[in-house]
């Protein structure tokens, strides 16, 4: 395994590899933007302290913003799918493929992320087990949000009352699940010292080869390097 990439900035002339395509980055940030607007406006109803914001003009603005952001939220995966279908289906397939290396990752995650230990982590694909778990939860809650949201938006008065109330409850539980993941996600990319480069990947698309080797070794050797060989063969 490659050595640790904590001090990347100190070493110039790093070889860079493309981690996220433009489609992936745009879809990610559109999703991020929609999610934060939905969360912010949704909190008006969830947290009693914010109740004043749910009333009057700000309440109307919040109601409208929540619906507008919901449309954007629903569109985000479509951007990914239409713009970059190959990467979309590859990522989807990856998220649903769980093997021994993923369980190994989960077993060592605490030691690795809390104690900065390396060398015990099994090599990971484009997404490590934690990212796969995040993706699966995002997929499940996406559909829960969309279905229950549409029921509350357009089914008012026409769906059975129990279905409506259940939709409110499921919508709220989905919020709790995603907020917890969201906090972990922000912490790992913005605060955790081992993961500094992952946010660069989402802004610029690239990471250093060293970072890729440490965090996504399988992906680097099996996908990035193989692609590179293909390119060489063609030229």
């Amino acid at each position, binding site marked *: 395994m490659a050595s*640790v990439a904590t001090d990347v900035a100190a070493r110039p002339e790093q070889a860079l590899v493309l981690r996220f395509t433009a489609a992936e980055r745009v879809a990610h940030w559109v999703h991020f933007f929609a999610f934060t607007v939905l969360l912010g406006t949704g909190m008006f109803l969830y947290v009693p302290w914010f109740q004043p914001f749910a009333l009057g003009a700000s309440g109307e603005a919040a109601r409208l913003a929540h619906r507008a952001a919901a449309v954007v939220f629903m569109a985000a995966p479509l951007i990914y799918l239409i713009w970059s279908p190959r990467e979309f289906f590859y990522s989807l397939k990856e998220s649903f493929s769980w093997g021994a290396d993923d369980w190994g990752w989960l077993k060592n995650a605490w030691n690795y992320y809390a104690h900065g230990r390396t060398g015990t982590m099994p090599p990971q694909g484009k997404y490590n087990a934690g990212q796969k778990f995040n993706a699966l939860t995002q997929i499940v809650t996406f559909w829960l949000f969309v279905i229950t949201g549409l029921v509350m938006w357009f089914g*008012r008065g026409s769906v059975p009352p129990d279905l409506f109330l259940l939709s409110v409850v499921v919508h709220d539980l989905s919020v709790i699940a995603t907020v917890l993941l969201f906090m972990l996600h922000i912490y790992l990319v913005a605060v955790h010292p081992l993961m500094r480069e992952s946010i660069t990947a989402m802004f610029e698309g690239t990471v250093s080869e060293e970072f890729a080797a440490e965090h996504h070794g399988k992906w680097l050797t099996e996908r990035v390097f193989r692609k590179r060989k293909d390119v060489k063969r063609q030229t």
Partner: protein
Amino acid sequence: MSQITLLVDASKCTACRGCQIACKQWWDLSATKTTQTGTYENPRDLESNTWSRITFHEYESGGKFQWLFLQSSCLHCTNAACVDVCPTGALKQNATGFVSFERDLCNGCAYCAEACPFGIPRMETINALTGEAKASKCNMCQDRVTNGMTPACVKTCPPGALQFGERTAMITKAKERVETLKARGYPEARVYGENELGGLRRMYVLTAPASAYGLPDSPQYPVLASAWQNVIQPFGYVATALAVVGLALNWVATRRSRLNHVESLAAPAPEAPAEKEEV
């Protein structure tokens, strides 16, 4: 403050619908254009501008026919599901027991309309796409009642079928009336609302089973209505707080161990034997 109750003695109601009109007049609610559909019932359902109406029912029991009339409106439950689910505080339980409503505070979410065991609140949809809407329901003439007056419908009722006052007095009156009715050949006479959902502040004296009037025989508080504010909200707070603490602990642990890590980079030779968490 003493507890209030509006007693509807259905056996005295003549279906004049004076209460319906008095309600509209006091609250300045517009009339609805309706068409004759072969019944005296008009309009056929509660509406965002009809908070109370008389319903007509035919009932036969023991070879005896009864034409039943009932003032159908908000029952002002003591255990009010609508109050529990209202996220903006538009619906509140007044200290005297009735369920008040502030239209200005309503954001149109319709949780109340969906949670009500009697299906009372009506939504006035102003814009379906933006979700702009207002709930509406009888508020027990909150302005009149809190100023020492009786509700408009009670004030106007010619046969005295509607009475308003202190709850225990109303319960006593209702029970006396039931005994009288039983003696006069209404064996199915009963009080509805003494204990249902903690006690209904619109309480009925009926001469037939509740279902004959279109009321649920045993109204149930919807389980999901209490889940939201009693379970899901606190759960969300606790889970979020635990997550913050967890991440903070991780941050502390990471900062400490990162120093060890850099040292081990300088001298990479022996892999540290499985030494578990540093304390």
